């Protein structure tokens, strides 16, 4: 087979490939106008390749036939307006599109009509040894300029979009511009510049190949989601090249035997190529998934770290808040107590004659004043103790050798006024031996004071008995003949809430439940135990306090 025919066949193959492009672009394109119009572009590019091919292939039918086919190649000029429309749809600038399209199509149709029916565009053909070159008509330069103009518009549209695009889209447009530019430049050289110099155009078929490459690249950019998989791209390109070459070999086979072998090889390579492409694609996708997973894990780790930071900050804030609260409490302690010190001080001085002898009435008044002051001091102490408990601080400072009996005697002395007024007794059964335990004297006294004062307060007749024992444990038992407690009341006695029980509420309007809570906390801090029992309402109560002792004198 001669070279001319072979060239025709290769061009037919290119036309076929263009057809594949059209199918690939239109397949499931739905309403994607950009793809549809790129499909039209590929269609007309296919026509161009086909008519070029026919010009070569049917040369042996005579010059007139070939000339007819060659004139038809100008139909391919319609691919230009199609491409322009594609760029408008791709960049989304579809305003006045119909108007613009009509202009381009109008000119294109005029060119096609004139080239079919006159020799204004194509004058004649000339056969060389391996080539058919064309001799252009007078309007041919205008056609070239028009083509160039269309391409310039397309590239301008793409460039404008390129500068504002980001990421993947930017890459896509880069491909379009690359392909279009290659086409423009080489097309210019082969179909305009060289013919201009040598007065004939022998290389017009190159434009067919180039247009395939150009539209092929563009289609590839449109169809593929991830362009940058170099591995996949090169595998595919390599396979395509191999297939095309082998397909050509089929057509160029000398005899049937060769043809069958070539078909066989082509099919084998086709399947193998498809398999290879799929496996490479799978590998790349897996790698991408792995990367994505790694990123997610890193993201999760970062989130966890951030959450940790938040938690740490919250903890630090809480701690600093605690410290601030502590500072505040310390300051308050001092400020609340300072004036109270003066009040206690002055009342004490008056009572002890520092300001001279006072009348009985005055002494009575000052006593009451002092009692209130002492009550307030006690309240302040308890309030501060509670906050210390709540801050988890150590409230007691245990020292060895504290004797209990003097403490209780002091308490009895302090409550003497009240018990005498009420007409009830307060008896302390002194133990035979003297006991010393490890205790915080002030705090223990406050605790015991609360319990005994409680007993006194809720006893209307009879009195309070206090007994100190030391059989196997050190024990203080405070028994009263007062209003007693119900079962329910006994359960909640040492709670933080201001429980006073129903009976107590009826009898008195004053009284604070926190006293018992503080007392129990202090006893616990001394590593002791405290509990209470009663046979019922109206039957008195007994408070039991156990303390670990360290020495018996």
């Amino acid at each position, binding site marked *: 087979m001669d070279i001319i025919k072979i060239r025709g066949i290769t061009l037919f193959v290119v036309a076929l490939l263009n057809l594949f492009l059209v199918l690939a672009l239109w397949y499931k394109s739905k309403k994607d106008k950009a793809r549809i119009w790129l499909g039209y572009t590929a269609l007309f590019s296919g026509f161009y390749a086909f008519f070029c091919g026919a010009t070569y292939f049917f040369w042996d039918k005579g010059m007139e036939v070939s000339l007819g086919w060659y004139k038809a190649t100008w139909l391919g000029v319609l691919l230009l307006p199609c491409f322009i429309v594609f760029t408008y749809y791709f960049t989304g600038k579809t305003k006045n599109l119909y108007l613009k399209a009509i202009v381009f199509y109008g000119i294109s149709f005029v060119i096609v009509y004139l080239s079919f029916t006159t020799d204004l565009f194509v004058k004649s053909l000339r056969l060389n040894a391996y080539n058919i070159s064309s001799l252009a008509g007078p309007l041919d330069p205008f056609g070239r300029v028009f083509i160039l103009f269309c391409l310039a518009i397309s590239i301008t549209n793409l460039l404008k979009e390129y500068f504002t695009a980001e990421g993947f889209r930017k890459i896509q447009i880069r491909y379009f511009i690359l392909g279009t530019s290659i086409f423009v430049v080489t097309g210019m050289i082969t179909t305009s510049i060289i013919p201009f110099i040598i007065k004939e155009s022998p290389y017009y078929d190159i434009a067919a190949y180039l247009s395939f490459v150009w539209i092929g690249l563009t289609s590839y950019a449109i169809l593929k989601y991830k362009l940058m998989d170099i591995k996949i791209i090169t595998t595919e390109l390599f396979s395509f090249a191999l297939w095309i070459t082998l397909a050509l070999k089929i057509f160029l086979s000398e005899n049937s035997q060769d043809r069958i072998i070539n078909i066989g090889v082509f099919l084998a390579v086709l399947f193998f190529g498809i398999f290879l492409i799929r496996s490479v694609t799978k590998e790349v996708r897996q790698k991408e998934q792995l990367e994505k997973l790694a990123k997610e894990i890193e993201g999760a780790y970062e989130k966890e770290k951030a959450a940790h930071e938040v938690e740490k900050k919250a903890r630090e804030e809480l701690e600093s808040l605690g410290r601030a609260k502590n500072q505040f409490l*310390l300051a308050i*302690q*001092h400020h609340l*107590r*300072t*004036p*109270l*010190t*003066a009040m*206690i*001080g*002055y009342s*004490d*001085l008056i009572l*002890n*004659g*520092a300001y001279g002898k006072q009348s009985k009435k005055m002494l009575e008044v000052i006593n009451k004043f002092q009692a209130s002051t002492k009550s307030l*001091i006690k309240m*302040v*102490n308890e309030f*501060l*103790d509670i906050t*210390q408990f709540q801050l988890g*601080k*150590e*409230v*007691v*400072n245990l020292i060895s050798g504290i004797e209990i009996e003097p403490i209780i005697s002091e308490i009895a002395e302090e409550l003497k006024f009240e018990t005498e007024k009420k007409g009830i007794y307060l008896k302390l059964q002194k133990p035979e031996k003297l006991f010393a335990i490890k205790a*915080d004297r*002030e705090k223990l006294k406050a605790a015991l004071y609360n319990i005994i004062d409680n007993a006194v307060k809720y006893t209307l007749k009879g009195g309070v008995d206090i007994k100190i024992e030391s059989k196997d444990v050190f024990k203080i038992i405070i028994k009263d003949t007062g209003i007693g407690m119900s079962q329910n009341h006994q359960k909640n006695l040492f709670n933080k809430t201001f429980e006073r029980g129903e009976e107590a509420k009826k009898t008195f309007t004053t009284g604070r439940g926190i006293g018992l809570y503080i007392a129990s906390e202090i006893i616990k801090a001394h590593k002791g135990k405290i509990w209470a029992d009663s046979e019922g309402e109206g039957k008195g109560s007994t408070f039991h306090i156990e303390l670990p002792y360290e020495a018996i004198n």
Partner: protein
Amino acid sequence: MDKIFLIEDDQSIIDVYKIAFKSAKINAEFFSWGKEAIEKIKDIQSNKEEKPKIMLIDLVLPDISGLEILKLVKENEKTKDILCFVFSNYTNSEQGEFNGVKPDKFILKTNITPTELVKLVKESINHN
């Protein structure tokens, strides 16, 4: 005569104790500023002044902390035998934070009356 120091910034409290110590015929010297006390102690340490038997030191002073005074007294050979009673309105749970220097006694101001304090001072002087 035996004397004692009271280092305290609140004027009303000083007034109360001035009368109390006067009634009890105790020779007491009063300091409202930490720096004054420090100067005095330094003088004592360099033998320019007589040392007191007891020092009652408030923790919260306008210029310094009472602990500095306590430290100064207790860490000096000459003055470490002076009885130092920390006389404060902070609860004795703060006792642990005395930076290793222990006072001889901790007294909570609101829990003691002048009469009781005078008694305590007299006992401590006689005991020594």
